[in-house]
């Protein structure tokens, strides 16, 4: 009883966080027909700043880290990416009204990771002073890439079966390369490398670190605006996408939270790490995923998977999953 009351109280407190406020504010703005826009150049710059900050910080701290610790969580991360895609494909295979390729693409997008959602989780963890290992942000590609590769490969195998005459080979290395070349992973890896090989402490402390929280607030506003603006796309496709997009983040996140908790008791994976792993699983890719899927599964309808992810999946991941997992960590691990 006490446990539950504590849980609910903490959850309530989370909802006053300005991070969520900006997200919801963005939705309301578009809903009210506001003409306020954040220019695209600013959006691109903010994403770059956030990923550089995450990367630099990771790189600087990884230097002294014991990377052997990273092994098991990395394996778990890959497994989660793969399982999410398989679960998604299974789900959509039950719904006969949905085109197979659309199901594969949606499952892939939800397996992949959103940098924005991830950054929001980091700020909220910091607010609650819940620590995590320096190398956790480096787990990102371990979930993102396998999920995208698997979804694209399976979709192409399926399409090949359908039309025997098709001669296109699936180029796995090509998909991996395209993921790594995407702007999100590029910026993260660049930051990691610079943190590792140079001494960016001053520029980090005077620029990337202090601006992080502010830029994140604007990013949340943009995500909220985009979520509402794209809802009409979702309306043009089957309702099942909305159902999937609502429950998938929660289920994926809980699954990852469970596996992360195992790693906690087994190899001492930190509570903050468990939360971040769960948020990666709950999130669906917004920057690199859509173009990769568009060229990997060209016959899938982008309105379906992007609408599902942007309009429902991401808001649920940010507004429901992050607070939930933080409070779960606080209650379970007593941090």
């Amino acid at each position, binding site marked *: 009883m006490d446990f539950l009351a504590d849980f609910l109280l903490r959850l309530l407190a989370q909802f006053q966080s300005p991070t969520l406020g900006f997200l919801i504010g963005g939705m309301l703005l578009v809903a009210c027909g506001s003409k306020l*826009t*954040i*220019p*695209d*150049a*600013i*959006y691109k710059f903010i994403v770059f700043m956030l990923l550089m900050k995450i990367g630099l910080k990771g790189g600087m701290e990884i230097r002294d880290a014991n990377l052997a610790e990273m092994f098991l969580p990395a394996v778990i991360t890959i497994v989660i990416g793969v399982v999410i895609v398989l679960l998604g494909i299974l789900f959509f295979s039950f719904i006969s009204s949905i085109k197979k390729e659309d199901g594969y693409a949606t499952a892939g997008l939800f397996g992949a990771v959103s940098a924005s959602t991830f950054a929001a989780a980091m700020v909220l963890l910091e607010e609650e002073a819940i620590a995590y290992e320096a190398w956790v942000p480096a787990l990102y590609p371990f979930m993102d890439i396998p999920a995208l590769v698997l979804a694209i490969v399976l979709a192409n195998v399926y399409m090949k079966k359908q039309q025997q005459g098709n001669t296109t080979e699936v180029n796995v290395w090509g998909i991996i390369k395209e993921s790594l070349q995407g702007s999100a992973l590029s910026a993260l890896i660049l930051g990691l490398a610079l943190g590792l090989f140079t001494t960016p402490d001053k520029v980090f402390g005077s620029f990337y670190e202090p601006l992080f929280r502010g830029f994140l607030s604007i990013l949340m506003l*943009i*995500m909220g*605006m*985009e979520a509402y603006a794209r809802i009409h*796309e979702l309306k043009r496709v089957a309702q099942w996408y909305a159902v999937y997009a609502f429950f998938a983040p929660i289920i994926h996140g809980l699954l990852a939270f469970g596996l992360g908790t195992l790693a906690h008791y087994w190899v001492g994976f930190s509570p903050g790490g468990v939360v971040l792993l769960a948020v990666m699983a709950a999130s669906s890719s*917004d*920057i690199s995923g*859509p*173009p990769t899927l*568009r*060229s990997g599964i*060209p*016959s899938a309808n*982008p*309105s379906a998977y*992007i609408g599902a992810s*942007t309009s429902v999946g991401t808001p649920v991941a940010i507004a429901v999953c992050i607070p939930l997992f933080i409070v779960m960590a606080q209650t379970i691990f007593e941090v």
Partner: protein
Amino acid sequence: MTLHVAEKVVIITEKIIAKGVCQIIDGCGATGYTIVPAGGKGSRNMRSTTERASVVDDFANIKIEIIVNDYAMAEAIMDQVKDKYFNNYSGITYLEDIKILRPEKFS
């Protein structure tokens, strides 16, 4: 000033396949092309031209114009682009008659 009749192929399609379309154009032997950013509405979707933040990038349109003074080449470009892309990507293509100054520049 003597003007010579030539053809202008216009392709309006998704920015994400720009590279592939340009390869087809080069492959057909055109001497050049001009690209203009565009938005629009067609049978498939609405594509914006606005400068507001687009979280999902690369889904804007582009308009590509290719001047050729050889009708067969115009046909080849239109055919190949249509066959390769227009099943999966939105796009249209059409032809205009124009008059050019120096035909040798475009062949």
